[in-house]
């Protein structure tokens, strides 16, 4: 779990951590305002099965695209699964989708705005990402 460099919001990160843990995943929450270098460093250190980038401040499309390009420049992180979601632009849903440009920049999936949470749950359920024993209800 990580935010992007300029985004200080954390409720999205707290929620997604609880959600991922309930689905049986172990979560390292890097938190808000994560510089690109730190994200790369943490990916190397943790070697996660999935990197979830979440942003809601409106700079997500800009910062996310830059971060993923830098991350994909690293030989060892080229095949790491990285997805992004949230409120990614300053103009809200009216601006249309940032999906294609973010996919082209190197993300494996993009989940935009509120509807993205349900899509993200489905994506996780369908993915072959290894989960720990599901937590007790």
């Amino acid at each position, binding site marked *: 779990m990580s935010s992007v460099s*300029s985004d*200080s919001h954390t409720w999205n990160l707290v*929620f997604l951590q609880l959600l991922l843990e309930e689905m049986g995943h172990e979560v390292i*929450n890097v938190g808000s305002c994560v510089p690109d270098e730190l994200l790369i460093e943490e990916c190397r250190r943790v070697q996660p099965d999935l990197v979830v980038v979440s942003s809601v401040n409106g700079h997500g499309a800009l910062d996310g695209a830059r971060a993923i390009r830098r991350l994909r420049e690293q030989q060892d992180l080229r095949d790491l699964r990285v997805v992004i979601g949230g409120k990614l632009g300053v103009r809200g849903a009216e601006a249309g989708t940032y999906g294609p440009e973010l996919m082209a920049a190197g993300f494996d999936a993009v989940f935009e705005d509120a509807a993205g949470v349900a899509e993200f749950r489905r994506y996780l359920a369908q993915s072959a990402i290894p989960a720990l024993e599901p937590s007790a209800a």
Partner: protein
Amino acid sequence: MSALTAASTGSTAPLGPFAEAVAAAGRAGELVVQPRMGFADVPRMRQGLHAVKAARARTVGTLTIDSYTRVGDNESARRALIEGTDLNGYPIVAHGPATTRDLTSALMGDGFAVQVRHGSANPIGIIQALLDAGLDATEGGPISYCLPYSRTPIRHSVEAWARTCELLASRPGTHLESFGGCMLGQLCPPGLLVALSVLEGIFFKQYGLRSISLSYAQQTHHVQDVEALLALRTLAGEHLAGLDWHVVLYTYMGVFPRTTGGALGLLRDSARLAALTGTERMIVKTPAEAHRIPTIEDNIHALEEASAAAAAYRGQSPVVSDEFGVLGEARALVEAVLEIHPDTGRALTEAFRRGILDVPYCLHADNAQRSRSYIDGRGSLQWHTTGSMPIPALLAPGRAQLRADDLLGMLSYTQESFDRAALVAGDQRDGTAALPA
């Protein structure tokens, strides 16, 4: 003054424009209302400030700084200005002091002033820029602008804010607001919010500030909020004696109602809370909040709505209770921290290291992360666990562990209550619809 502690008039130093604007409104018995507003484009920013000044309400203006400038990435802010990319605020450092002075100087006076709002854990550059531009007021604090918004270690933030306070205090009449009563916007129980705001106020005083405001963000329960605001005044009276001080209330900062009726209901509720508790200033939210970044018109409408709602309750007294024990909790926390060390900065740093202060749901590495809160059956905020804080928890029945959906329910509790009330009242307008002029 019955249950209300009057703001201090003990200060002999002349007030700057911002503190004077608030004091003058206080003398007139009027609530000062203030928007959040920041545009990268100077003509649009100018238009916004003019509109705020001209609103049918007692107002002060705001320059909200963009998030690149907040994290010290002035290069990205400059590039965005050159390329014409959207920013989410006014890049005060990239624009430079001459531009900002030109923007604000003609507006100042006649009871109008401008506060710079930024959110930076290391704001020296922003503070220098606002002083160079002739401005006198800003906000933040070593904890409130570190824990929720940055990766900066608390001890570095304390050091940066000590220098920031000294720089601000070197200019007579400057005003600093603690953002400590707004931690994470929602789900922080009031006792801790009040304690943090008071502790930051004491920190500002230690580093030379003579004009201070303490904040509190509206939470989930009116009577509990009344208790909190009165507790804040009581503790400010005890710890900031001899200074100029006032209290600022923030309209609910969490997930906002989606309907126009629900959003305006919540806004009016906060204005009522301010009026009943003798709160001097209030930062408003707009019905657009749940959908998009508010326009200038959205803000003006909210300012006028809040001002009118507050005026309707002027002179009335709140129901004073101790049902929630907010003053006792806040006092216990403040005293436990001040006992640690005579230097408030060191005391705050050590308090977080030991978990004597522990903000629920805060992911910062220096926060103990052993406290959790919940909304109880009355709709008030309670502690689920308090970790090492010297205050008791009241475990939520049948809720040993908090799940993602529980958290979502609590985050949207206020939104749903006010939307439901609006729908029952027959107001089904969506906040995205055009607002009445």
